[in-house]
């Protein structure tokens, strides 16, 4: 086994990227745009462009396909996602959305698929492409999908319903997960495919600013060349591992934002003649938030470490997402609770963190590392 040492410290490169993203987010959050975007149900294209300009996604793509050829690093991607999500979860998903499409094709696609699709999106300018995994039904499970792909001569025919497809209207292509004879495969579908219908924009509990859509496929014909990985198919297990780690990183960011806001509020809010933080009933909640945020981050990094070493992270990514799903809800709940009535008012971001936080356990495949 290669010995890469064991450590909790960020490399220089990692901490400089973390600082860059944090600074950018901070400069954008001044004047509360995360709140405004949520209220207006619209992400600022300018902010997305700025995040994209950092080059976090395409830096790890080989130069042949339009990237900068830096080493692929799930840990670095986890660090970036946490920082973005600490600013705004909707923004974190939107700004990194092409990654899920791009990385999947890069790592699992055929040579033809890479040549055909990567240059389209590995561009200095942000271009949307999206992923359709979730299905609108009770007992939805990313590992047993109801959307079906049937093989026919030189093509596949897809039928099924998807939901929570971010930015589907703006996207040139969708990556759609479907059950192909008992095995889950991913298909590259052009958004103007006549068999694919993008519905009315959804209204959801959280992520108001993120446009998302239901997508229905009715006898949607896809060329056999557009099944990710061609004859070999894709490594859907690995795809899920990467997206699960990404959701844990996002959960860490959302939870951290709630923790920091509640902590600062509790020090300022005076009742009975002293800050509410000086009472154990509040202080203990804050302590718990503090170590659970750290625990979530470490679980995320642990899973990302396994992936980064090129090993199978099925168990670690599953546990990291399970943990982040449960803990994000708990922490964002504490955030609202500490602010009391004020936490219920949309002026304070803890209510948004609470609504968005529910998504961590539920949503699959909306981001990747």
């Amino acid at each position, binding site marked *: *086994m290669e*010995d*890469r*040492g*064991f*450590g*909790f*410290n*960020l*490399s220089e490169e*990692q901490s400089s990227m973390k600082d860059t993203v944090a600074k950018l987010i901070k400069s954008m959050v001044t004047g509360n745009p995360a709140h405004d975007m949520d209220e207006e149900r619209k992400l600022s294209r300018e902010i997305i462009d700025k995040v994209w300009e950092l080059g976090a996604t395409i830096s790890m793509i080989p130069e042949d396909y339009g990237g900068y050829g830096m080493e692929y690093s799930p*840990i670095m991607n986890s660090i970036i996602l946490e920082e973005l999500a600490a600013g705004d979860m909707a923004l974190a998903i939107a700004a990194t959305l092409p990654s899920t499409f791009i990385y999947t094709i890069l790592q699992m696609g055929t040579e033809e698929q890479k040549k055909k699709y990567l240059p389209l999106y590995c561009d200095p300018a942000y271009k949307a492409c999206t992923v359709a995994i979730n299905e609108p039904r009770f*007992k*939805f*499970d*990313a*590992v047993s999908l109801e959307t079906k792909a049937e093989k026919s001569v030189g093509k596949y025919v897809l039928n099924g319903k998807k939901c929570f497809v971010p930015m589907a209207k703006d996207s040139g292509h969708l990556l759609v997960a479907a059950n192909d004879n008992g095995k889950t495969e991913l298909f590259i579908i052009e958004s103007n495919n006549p068999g694919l219908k993008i519905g009315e924009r959804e209204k959801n509990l959280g992520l108001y600013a993120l446009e998302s859509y239901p997508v229905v496929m009715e006898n949607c014909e896809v060329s056999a060349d557009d099944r990710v990985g061609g004859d070999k198919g894709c490594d859907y*297990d690995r795809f899920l591992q990467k997206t699960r780690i990404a959701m844990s990183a996002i959960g860490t960011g959302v939870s951290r934002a709630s923790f920091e806001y509640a*902590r600062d509020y*509790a*020090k300022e809010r005076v009742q009975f003649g002293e800050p509410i*933080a*000086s009472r*154990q009933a509040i*202080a*203990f909640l*804050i*302590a*718990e938030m*503090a*170590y*659970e945020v*750290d*625990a*979530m981050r*470490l*679980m995320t*990094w*642990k899973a990302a*470490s*396994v992936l*980064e*070493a090129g*090993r199978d992270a*099925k*168990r*670690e990514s*599953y*546990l*990291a997402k*399970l*943990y982040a*799903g*449960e803990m994000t809800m708990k922490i964002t709940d504490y955030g609202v609770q500490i602010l009391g009535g004020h936490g219920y008012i949309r002026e304070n971001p803890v209510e948004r963190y609470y609504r968005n936080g529910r998504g961590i*356990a539920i949503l699959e495949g909306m981001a990747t590392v």
Partner: protein
Amino acid sequence: MINLEMTQKMIDVKSGMNNMATGMLRPISRYYDENEHKYPQELDMFRSIKIMSRPKKKKAGEETKPDKPDSKKLGANLSMVIVIEEMCWGDLGLLLSLPNAGLGNAAIAAVATDEQMERFGDKWASMAITEPGSGSDSGSITARATLDGDEWVLNGEKIFVTCAERSEVAVIWATVDRSAGKAGIKSFVVEKGRPGFKLEKLEHKLGVRASDTGTYVLDDCRIPKDNILGSAEIKESTEGFKGAMKTFDNTRPLVASMALGVTRAALDFTREKIEESGIKLDYGKNPNNLSAVEKEFYMMEANLEAMRLLTWRAAWMMDNGEFNNLEASMAKAKAGRYGTLIVQKCCELLGPLGFSCENLAEKWIRDIKITDIFEGTGQIQHLIVARNVLGYSSKQLK
């Protein structure tokens, strides 16, 4: 560089200790639980390991090499938490009974002079802080030490002393001046057998019964003047007391790793039974589509992983010379509480197997509880974490 995957060295330490725990501790686990206070002679072979000690100082004139930060090297503390987890997977009560590995040994190792190290370094040392009226508030102890010529005269009562009977010396916390508050609290090494020193009784406990917890009574007990650890001077500040409390930054990750070991023992046994029943744990399905048993199991496993990573971080920081007061308490807070909850849940899932003394699970549910109590209760850990993240003093957050 961030890498939280175990290195080969860590895996080797872990598997070596696991073999030892399987072969030596598990077989005698039940026996010493049932024979409370009986010294486990099998542990004599560990006398030379010196878990709580420090490396012998080089002789004068010899150059000491500064520790190079080397991520490839396995640090002493990280290594220790791995060792302790495995041993406690074997048996926590037996770990607490390891010769020469008392908390007193940690205190001596931390502050003793070279001369004191010569005298006490090889002795098994217990630590006596708690009093009937003074638990978490260790600044309020009333045991007193008075200087009389070349001797200290000690008076008072100390309870909940681990290794009370088996230790050869005891580190006694006492005040030299009550009016000085915490600044007046010092620690003293008392050799067993000195007149006026008495082991009053041994406790009968919920768990960790292999460990001999007892009460000391000091009645005009005289010890040499230079048996005091650290300076006798009462300083304006409470630096001395804080220094003593700092020992806990080092030992809390160790206690957290005790919780990891017991918790994993219970979880491993539960997994075995779940799999024997035909359920396959494959880490794939949406949690909504799992049975209650599977969902509980995964969540416990995730929590154990979280406990472990917080603990390893605190230990790793020590190895790297970083101040870890916050992280040590985070680890202890999480591991003590969730370890306790997890073992409780394991026993519930095990049903009759979790209640019967035919299996060790019922022992683990008793043993684990101590990890949320000693070395600072979970509530004290939460206070420390909260004060740290809020930037509050102990006056601002009581």
